[in-house]
């Protein structure tokens, strides 16, 4: 992992991504991740209570990105 990170460090982007902009993305990712985690746990609890199985959604749908 450390080698991987130092590889990234060597290739600096030509744009200044901005420290704040980087941190905000990590924050959004964290909050979203927490939301997904809570959602998943809740589904499990619901599934346990109702006796139904949790159905996993296909996340990689190619049809998502056509523009009108």
């Amino acid at each position, binding site marked *: 992992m450390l080698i991987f990170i130092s590889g990234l460090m060597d290739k600096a982007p030509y744009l200044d991504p901005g420290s704040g902009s980087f941190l905000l993305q990590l924050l959004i990712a964290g909050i979203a*991740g927490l939301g997904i985690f809570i959602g998943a746990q809740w589904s499990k609890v619901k599934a346990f209570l109702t006796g139904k199985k949790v159905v996993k959604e296909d996340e990689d749908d190619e049809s998502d990105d056509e523009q009108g």
Partner: protein
Amino acid sequence: MSKVSRLGASFRDPSGFLFTHNGGLYRQINHSYAAEYDRLMGSGLYERLVKAGLLIPHREVDISPAEPDLAYKVIQPESVRFISYPYEWSFDQLKDAALTTLTLQRRALKAGMSLKDASAYNIQFVNGKPTLIDSLSFETYQEGLPWVAYRQFCQHFLAPLALMARRDIRLGQLLRIYIDGIPLDLASRLLPWSTRFNLGVFTHIHAHAAVQARFAERPIERSKMQAGMSRQAMFGLLDSLEATVRGLKWKLDKTEWGHYYEMTNYSNAAFEHKKRLVAEWTERLQPKLVWDLGANTGVFSRQVRGAEAYVVAFDIDPLAVAQNYLQVKEAGEKNILPLILDLTNPSPALGWDNRERDSLAQRGPADLVLALALVHHLAISNNVPLPQIADFFAGIGRWLAIEFIPKSDSQVQKLLRSREDIFSHYTREDFEQSFGRRFKIHSGVQICESERTLYLMECVKPLQ
């Protein structure tokens, strides 16, 4: 003797640059970008994006690079008929360009790459659709790293869209001042307070601006930022940006000209006569590049004939341009580009050394300029003397189809109603004399059931 020159707008990205060679446009790819370029081409991403009309096609060519020491390859991108800028786009054009950028990033991620910039200037309208023209915008995606172009996306797309939708449509013009997009602290201050209740706008503009301010003087080591942004989170960020962009809608207010054709004073026969003349003249001239100035919703732009004709339909009214663009989208028209332009203050040359973005005139000359029901606005509303109007047209086009509307016409009377008539030189004779100094007048046709005249002129003394 070959002539090579580097383009003034192409200097920021060390991956390569654009240059012209004997009149053709080429892009040099530098050695430093070789691996990324090979991945774009080899992974099938290039092919898929080109097929979807999201990326401009190019071909590798065997000509000498402009800077041989740095060069890996030279490519020739397919030419773009007319380069336009975000401050000339209607709300929906900017919105579609934003959505295209997000689509590109999503597709790039699926192929293990990522956009390293998200500049609105990298998008151009090709065949009526927003298309990425910078083939060097992709880099290898490194999981864990946040999106390097996130800030640029928010500044170039989200901030102007939010300001136009939620504050005032005219704020899109801020893009003309801020060449790297609207600063988020400014956008945050200008947006109505209520936009803080829009989760996307709150996160990507208001909170973004606050976090930027907080860390402006405290740069964080990049090594501490690497972890934490999973691939899934990156897709989540893109979903959030897309939902925010899609959620921004401009409520079409009544603007100056939006219902222009419902308020005109001339008859149906006169209207049809004008349409017929435009069709006949363009059929004869076969122009390639036509600028329709004061095009409104593009009624006369659509009369232009000619196998290779491409019409840039300019108007000052954002509503008219928006309606025109919707028509282009609905009908899938490939040869009309609607743009916002205030002719009394046309787009100037901008950016570093004033060479990054071309002025209107630098993007000409057009083969034919249409100026229908326009001159009275320039001469009377904006007080420009007729000889200067003639000089302006001589600087932008080879042929000119121009309508003269005399003072007796009720539309001109309307302009004069609230002011003193100081325009003693606004007569048909003065018009013909002023334009005759630079143009050869080929024909002047009286429009039926009106006092108006439509002229066809050829520029014989262009402005140097």
